[in-house]
């Protein structure tokens, strides 16, 4: 699971009012290479919760990857866009766990794939 997805993911557990951000526990992380598009990152910036990304990077021991705040010249700042691209699209959570912050339902991540299935009797 990419950090872009984590930044946008909310709990889909029925009845949950405040399901964001999902708590993330990381056991194994991998890196992959995705073609850089500054335009894409720029388009995503207004949709992102930057402090959530900053906190997750801190939690996984990569606190210096991106600045604490989005710079004002973000759209023209290639260094920043490339750092954001790397953080959002190239770090891949291979093994870990997502947890709904309200219901505390847990969703394991294995082989890079979060299992978001809700057991029906739990619904």
């Amino acid at each position, binding site marked *: *699971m*990419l950090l*872009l*997805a984590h930044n*946008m*993911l*909310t*709990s*889909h*557990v*029925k009845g949950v009012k405040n*399901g*964001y951000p999902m708590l993330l526990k990381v056991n194994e992380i991998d890196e992959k290479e*995705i073609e850089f*598009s500054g*335009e*894409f990152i720029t*388009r*995503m910036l207004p*949709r992102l*919760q930057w402090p959530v990304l900053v906190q997750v990077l801190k939690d996984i021991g990569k606190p210096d990857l991106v600045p604490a705040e989005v710079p004002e010249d973000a759209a023209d700042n290639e260094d920043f866009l490339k750092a954001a691209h790397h953080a959002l*699209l190239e770090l891949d959570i291979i093994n870990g766990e997502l947890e709904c912050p309200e219901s505390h339902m847990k969703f394991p991540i294995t*082989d*890079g*794939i*979060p*299992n*978001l*299935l*809700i057991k*029906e*009797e739990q*619904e």
Partner: protein
Amino acid sequence: SLYIMSRPEHLAPPEIFYNAEEARKYAGNSRMIKIQTELTERCLELLSLPEDQPSLLLDVGCGSGLSGEVLTEAGHIWLGLDISRDMLEVAKEREVEGDLFLQDMGQGVGFRPGTFDGVISVSALQWLCNADKKCHEPRKRLARFFSTLYGVMAHGAKAVFQFYPENPEQAQMITLHATKAGFTGGIVIDFPNSSKAKKMFLCLFAGVSAKLPEGKTGLGAAPSEGASFIHKARQKNKKAGVKSRDWIVAKKERRRRQKGKEAVRPDTKFTGRKRRDRF
């Protein structure tokens, strides 16, 4: 048999039907790849995203990532959901670029409001109409899916579902729940007169009403059969108001047809005219 091949959803739920063996067969079959690729290309065409703009897309029922590869090739970033772990494992093996989630669309999707620029789905929606478990109620699952989907789409974003409805009632049930969730749009039919080439696409708009694209006919400029079920569903609920001009004219016409009731006053421009509120 032909029956089983054409309706796999009657055989077993998708997570069972698309087991490891089936998933590999599916992803390795060149005919399947060709069909999936063409369907995805048509979905993208119907999405009509702004040109040369890398978008964030959601692929519902992404399977082994055949559709996703078309999205990657078009320069988009995508997230894919599927209920079959085996299919997703094949997608991983094939090293697709999309981010994959094991998820049941009938349980709803959870992303921040306005996350996706567009949604596509190839041959997955009809699975949602099954009741594979005791607790499954297709209507509830459709309602949950569409209402949560509406929330995660950017304002003005479109969702295009290529699907194989079992019958017109099923198509109507699906579009009804999409409408209830707030979507506008309808069904586009490509090649409606060919039993082999006929393809159906549910095209939904979030937050705006746009013109439904035309279906392909293969007959040059012949008119499309792309019927808007949603439009019909809406009209059905809207009865002509009692005492409206149309209602009065229709009633007078009925009276005239009855014997001995010929003395009905003629219809004029004053018939059913709204009167000023005097009191």
